[in-house]
């Protein structure tokens, strides 16, 4: 394939602005899928994506498009819009020369429109602005076009009006892709240099590597090498990504495809690595990706403690499919063996948990999420704190630093007041306020990450009646007065319930956590004292009263076995509970913190 006839582009936007729906139309228009195969948001092929109606993973697919009598190969990558998955976007961008920037014509520019746009510009991608959903009665293309022009400095006529739903503007978009996005550069004759930008684990075929060739040519059966890991393989199968995989004998510079080389161990593949030939390797690896930075850390434990190894294997497979998931083993007195995992955000954490349950049949407990703090030790050493248990003794550090973010909130003018108030409650400081239009305002805050990752967005949506979007990026660490809050049940610390909180919020947190636990811990034979403490100082207490009466009156002849079985069954049910000292703690209790409102 002549490189001049290849176009690699991704579709980027704020969440729900219609990327996947637009992709459907492009696939249909180019006859990449037949009408029979077509379904809404075809590329969202994970159960979870379909159920939640959002894209979680980027998805690459190849289309053929006839433009002015010439056949072009268009490699499209649909990306997620949710802030948690911006890593997916940045990887997709690295494989492309252009991007469709979709803006919902009824919503206008939102926080992730801006952040994703900047990602694309940072990679010198050609941007094609598209106003989508113009079919909506609430669409206001003129005003939104002004916003777009302001944002990217394009000309009004560069903006394509479209509706993924009604199939408007599809041909314009395809033509613009061919006309405006540059063909890939690269030398098919040079040593092979292909970048792995995604990978998928398939139980039957092992690891499927998704790559973009920058230089050189790869043939089926070639001896290849992954530059960073140094491992060598045979290219058992290469091919392009249609609606199904289409095997090829040879693929060369500029193209996007998949590789299967009998890799069974998930960990062997590093997304961002470079593929080259064993003989005649390339001189240098392509600049890979910055290691993904997890925003939130939490423990994941198997409910059934004997399933630890199974959980490990499942996480390894999941990690292959989701390069942003990082973890290391961890032990908890209350929960046994598990993993401390890093997530991109709360949605990501929720999704990982759900995928473990669905795709791997694991039942897991997730513990109190936390961001990463740093302790500046008395000897000036910096100690990272990913879990409450990492918090050193207060006598051993000078101070604690916590991660801050620059948060961008776009909202309607009438909600500016409540938004500022909310941010202040969350220890935020307003840094900037810009009117995008007379009615739409972009607010910039500096805020602790810990305050933003949990329920901030839900609250923001509530106070703005849904008219607010949020984006944030890490800006660095700042000194904060953080303390470790422990929870004790009948005097025994439940490590899995500890949390690192700001001193000013510790009392409130402790109180609400104790109250919540009181609801969740069932009455037992003994009274249970639930206490929250900072060091040795108790700051909150609740009591679960002992059961008053649990005795069946009758116990003769046949009742005896019946009753034994009943009690045994109840006891089995309780096995899913965790034993802390003499107290039985139900699984939900470990998630209680998430439900504090």
């Amino acid at each position: 394939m002549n490189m001049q006839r290849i176009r690699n582009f991704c579709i980027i936007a704020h969440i729900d602005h219609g990327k996947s729906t637009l992709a459907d139309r492009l696939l249909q228009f180019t006859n990449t899928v037949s009408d029979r195969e077509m379904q809404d948001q075809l590329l969202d092929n994970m159960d979870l994506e379909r159920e939640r109606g959002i894209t979680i993973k980027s998805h690459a697919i190849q289309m053929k498009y006839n433009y002015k009598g010439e056949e072009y190969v268009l490699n499209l990558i649909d990306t997620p819009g949710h802030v948690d998955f911006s890593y997916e976007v940045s990887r997709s961008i690295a494989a492309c020369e252009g991007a469709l920037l979709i803006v919902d014509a009824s919503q206008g520019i939102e926080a992730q429109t801006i952040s994703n746009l900047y990602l694309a510009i940072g990679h010198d991608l050609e941007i094609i602005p598209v106003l989508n959903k113009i079919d909506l009665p609430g669409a206001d293309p003129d005003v939104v076009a002004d916003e777009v022009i302001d944002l990217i400095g394009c000309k009004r006529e560069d903006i394509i009006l479209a509706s993924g739903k009604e199939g408007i503007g599809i041909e314009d978009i395809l033509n613009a892709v061919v006309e405006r996005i540059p063909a890939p550069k690269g030398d098919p004759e040079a040593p092979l240099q292909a970048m792995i930008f995604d990978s998928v684990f398939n139980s039957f075929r092992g690891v499927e590597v998704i790559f973009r060739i920058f230089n050189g040519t790869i043939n089926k059966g070639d001896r290849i090498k992954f530059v960073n890991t140094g491992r060598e393989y045979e290219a058992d199968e290469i091919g392009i990504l249609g609606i199904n995989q289409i095997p090829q004998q040879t693929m060369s510079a500029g193209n996007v495809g998949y590789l299967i080389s009998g890799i069974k161990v998930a960990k062997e593949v590093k997304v961002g690595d470079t593929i080259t030939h064993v003989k005649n390797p390339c001189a240098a690896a392509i600049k890979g990706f910055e290691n993904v930075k997890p925003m939130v850390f939490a423990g994941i434990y198997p409910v059934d403690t004997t399933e630890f190894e199974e959980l490990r294997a499942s996480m390894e497979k999941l990690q292959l499919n989701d390069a942003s998931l990082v973890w290391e083993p961890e032990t908890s007195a209350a929960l046994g063996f598990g993993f401390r995992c890093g997530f991109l955000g709360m949605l990501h954490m929720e999704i990982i948990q759900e995928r473990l349950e669905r795709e791997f049949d694991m039942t897991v407990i997730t513990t109190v999420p936390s961001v990463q703090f740093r302790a500046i030790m008395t000897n000036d050493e910096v100690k990272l704190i990913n879990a409450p248990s990492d918090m050193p003794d207060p006598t051993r550090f000078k101070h604690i630093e916590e991660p801050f973010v620059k948060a961008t909130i776009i909202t309607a003018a009438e909600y500016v007041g409540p938004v500022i108030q909310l941010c202040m409650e969350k220890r935020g400081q307003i840094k900037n306020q810009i009117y995008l239009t007379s009615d739409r305002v972009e607010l910039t805050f500096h805020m602790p990450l810990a305050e933003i990752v949990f329920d901030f967005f839900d609250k923001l949506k509530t106070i703005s009646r849904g008219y607010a979007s949020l984006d944030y990026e890490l800006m660095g660490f700042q000194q904060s007065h953080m303390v470790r809050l422990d929870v004790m049940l009948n005097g025994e610390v439940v490590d899995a319930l500890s949390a690192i909180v700001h001193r000013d919020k510790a009392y409130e947190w402790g109180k609400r956590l104790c109250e919540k636990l009181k609801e969740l811990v069932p009455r037992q034979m003994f009274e249970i004292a639930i206490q929250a403490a900072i060091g040795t100082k108790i700051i909150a207490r609740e009591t679960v009263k002992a059961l008053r009466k649990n005795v069946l009156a009758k116990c003769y002849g046949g009742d005896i076995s019946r009753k034994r079985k009943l009690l045994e069954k109840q006891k089995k049910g309780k096995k899913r509970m965790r034993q802390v000292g003499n107290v039985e703690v139900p699984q939900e209790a470990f998630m209680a913190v998430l439900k504090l409102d």
Partner: protein
Amino acid sequence: MDTSNNQAAAQKEISFQNGGRVYLSLGLKVNKLSGIYIHIPFCKRACHYCDFHFSTNSSQMEAMVSAICKELELRKDFLGSDQIIKTVYFGGGTPSLVPTDLLKKIMEQISAYYETDLEEVTLEANPDDLSDKNLEQWKALGIDRLSIGIQTFDENVLRFYNRAHTGEESLLAIQRAKAAGFGKLSIDLIYGFPAMDHGIFLADLDIALEQDPGHISSYCLTVEPKTVLGNWEMKGKFQSATEDFAAEQFEILMDRLEGAGYIQYEISNFGKPGNFALHNTNYWKSVPYLGIGPSAHSYDGKNRGANIANNARYIKGMENGLSPYNVETLAGADRVNEYILTSLRTIWGLDIDRVSALSGVDFVAGKVKLLEKLYSEKLVLLKDNYLFLTRKGKFLADSIAASLFIE
């Protein structure tokens, strides 16, 4: 409950235990006993809370008694040849509905096929069946103990339960039974019905105590699935008592009866010295027994058998000489756990050495933390390597037993 009260309660327990033991050592060779239970599956009408096996159509009474006699014959070797029958218990259903000539047949069948040395023959009877004539004939048959289904003396509550008698009748029935010379009398009372406030229950206890029965069994109302009450509860027309309400009445029950000189020798059973029920006590001591009649259970020391709970099929099966029961062999742990469950409920307590011997592991060593906690919370007492529930522990007998179960 404050600590001093606890201690007082605990003290009381100990003296009761001693009382029980003294009493026991006076006469009964408990573990040599075995008994026969006969289930009579007919009632006049269905009480709204009852999930026992019975039919309100007694046209099959004669056929049923023949079948029962047949089963007595067929299963004469169930308990082994060296067993001596010491107790017979007619339960139901309503055994007092059985015509005396038919009861006689059953008694004769027992004598014909079993070696007996009867020390207690109990008949469960409803107040409306306690005619002078019946009483006289039962006595003649060798029945020496009556367990009378009083439940309550309150007319409203009786009506709610759909009982076939009035409170007035109950009172007269007790008096007639005493006059007829039934020294061993037990009455049943129900508590924990939410509409029956503490005053009504106290009145029930007062009336009962005035009659001075030797034995009282009292059960908390439990709502069972396939009953009228269960149905009402499902439809939201009825709500069971709260845990606290039931606990308060249980407390009232124990206070009153202990005050009147009764010994709570099992959670729901109170007797004056010399009046403990022998037959029922055997259940709690894992003594073998033979259960005859539809839905009756049997235990031979290892296996539990359950007869089919269907009158027509039971009769048919017996006519064809078929075995009417399913057998379930108890695993070692099952037997230990059943012993834990029942023994803890009694005044004789749980024999720790016996549990260790039965299970082959040191019971205390395996549960030491839990036992310490139960002890420090004043839920159990330990004496001569026997474990007993305290007054406080009795309220949580099921939780405590379950926590002590072995794997």
